């Protein structure tokens, strides 16, 4: 069961204009750098991208925005990105802002085969418009919940720290973030890894995402791992 492909280009086989992509990462942390570069090169248009953030002007999903490849972003937090702002305000780019926990849980729901979930996030706000509201008693409290639907992206693209050729993934530190959830939601799931190893080299107990969710895997050529907010203490 070898899921290895040569590179990002080969991994993206089958991607078409107008498809929906989900991408892992939080800010610039844990983003699939090599796949994003390949997406830019490939130039498929009118993409809908599900990703917590939209990158910065010259890195991450910002690179796709510059090429005007994205029709719609589904995110919880954007900004830090002038081209994004320009496209959004001019109406070139559709933006669907949703609560961060809702985003994460809708991806998880896709991977868990649950067509919908309930969350209190957004009740009474414009996020609730047009959505089904339902009252539940939970944790000793009666309150309203929104019903939110699972995401089912055509392609899911994530970066992991280590992966084996069967697709089992281990993430490093907070580069985990949305990535396992993104990976489990995809109809086709691409994992790029910093280190690709043979089956048996990862401890079965330490795997964050079982390979059954991964369709194609490759070792990324290089990783810049840019830091968005370098905050430090003096020694």
């Amino acid at each position, binding site marked *: 069961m070898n899921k290895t492909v040569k590179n990002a280009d080969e991994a993206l086989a089958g991607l078409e204009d107008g498809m929906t992509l989900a991408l892992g990462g939080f800010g610039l942390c844990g983003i699939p750098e090599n796949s994003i570069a390949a997406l830019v090169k490939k130039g498929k248009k009118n993409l809908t991208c599900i990703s917590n953030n939209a990158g910065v002007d010259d890195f991450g999903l910002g690179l796709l925005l510059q090429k005007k490849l994205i029709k719609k972003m589904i995110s*919880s*937090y954007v900004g830090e990105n002038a081209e994004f702002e320009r496209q959004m305000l001019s109406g070139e780019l559709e933006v669907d802002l949703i609560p961060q*926990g809702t985003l994460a849980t809708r991806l998880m729901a896709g991977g868990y085969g649950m067509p919908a979930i309930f969350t209190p996030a957004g*009740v009474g706000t414009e996020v609730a418009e047009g959505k089904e509201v339902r009252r539940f008693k939970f944790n000793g409290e009666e309150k309203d919940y929104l019903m939110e639907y699972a995401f089912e992206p055509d392609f899911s693209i994530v970066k992991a720290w280590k992966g084996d050729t069967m697709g089992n993934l281990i993430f490093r530190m907070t580069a*985990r973030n949305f990535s396992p959830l993104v990976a489990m939601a995809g109809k086709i799931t691409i994992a790029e890894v910093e280190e690709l190893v043979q089956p048996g080299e990862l401890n079965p107990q330490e795997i964050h995402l079982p390979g059954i969710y991964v369709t194609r895997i490759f070792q990324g050529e290089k990783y810049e791992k840019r830091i968005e907010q370098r905050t430090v203490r003096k*020694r």
Partner: protein
Amino acid sequence: MLDKNGIAKRIAKEIKDGYYVNLGIGIPTLCANYIPQGVNVVLQSENGILGMGPFPFEGDEDADLINAGKQTVTLLPGAAIFDSALSFGMIRAQKVNLTILGAMEVSENGDIANWKIPGKMVKGMGGAMDLVASAKNIIVAMQHVNKAGESKLLPSCTLPITGLRCVKKIVTELGVLDVLPEGGFKLLERAPGISVEHIQNATAGKLIVDGEIPEMILD
């Protein structure tokens, strides 16, 4: 009148031993610097950390280890890393004891608006809507009035709502106020040198002043 650090210092007194706490961006982040000795807390960052530590020493930054504000951070002994779904899972399940966050407006029934100004560039709600919809105990850290001198404590919010009837306590540069379940801002403490009248004038919503209001003790 308190500065940002003063507000953070006062809020830090609300953090009890054994609490799991989520700190928003801005003043709330500063609270971590004032947690009293002997009070053991675990900081949660919604991008997937329990046991977040201070910023790293120069040169120790790790691109794979950031907080929800995208700042490089460290982990303390006993930390745990998890994905975003579990992170909001524990928030929704109310395992996080206290959420401290900023606001643009709070209404006298506890509604909060802090994510969107119509007509301006909208950056998104991030995790704020999840946090305010779920947390049992929410303290807002903010300025009492905006830059135009208008009160941010209102009868009802004028900006798009982030969450309904969720704020329990507000600490501003002028004082400490509880939001009562039946509605109204109950003044608990005045900032050093601030009069009740000053606070009354800065509060557009219903202010409840019951008896003598003590000046806050910060140390």
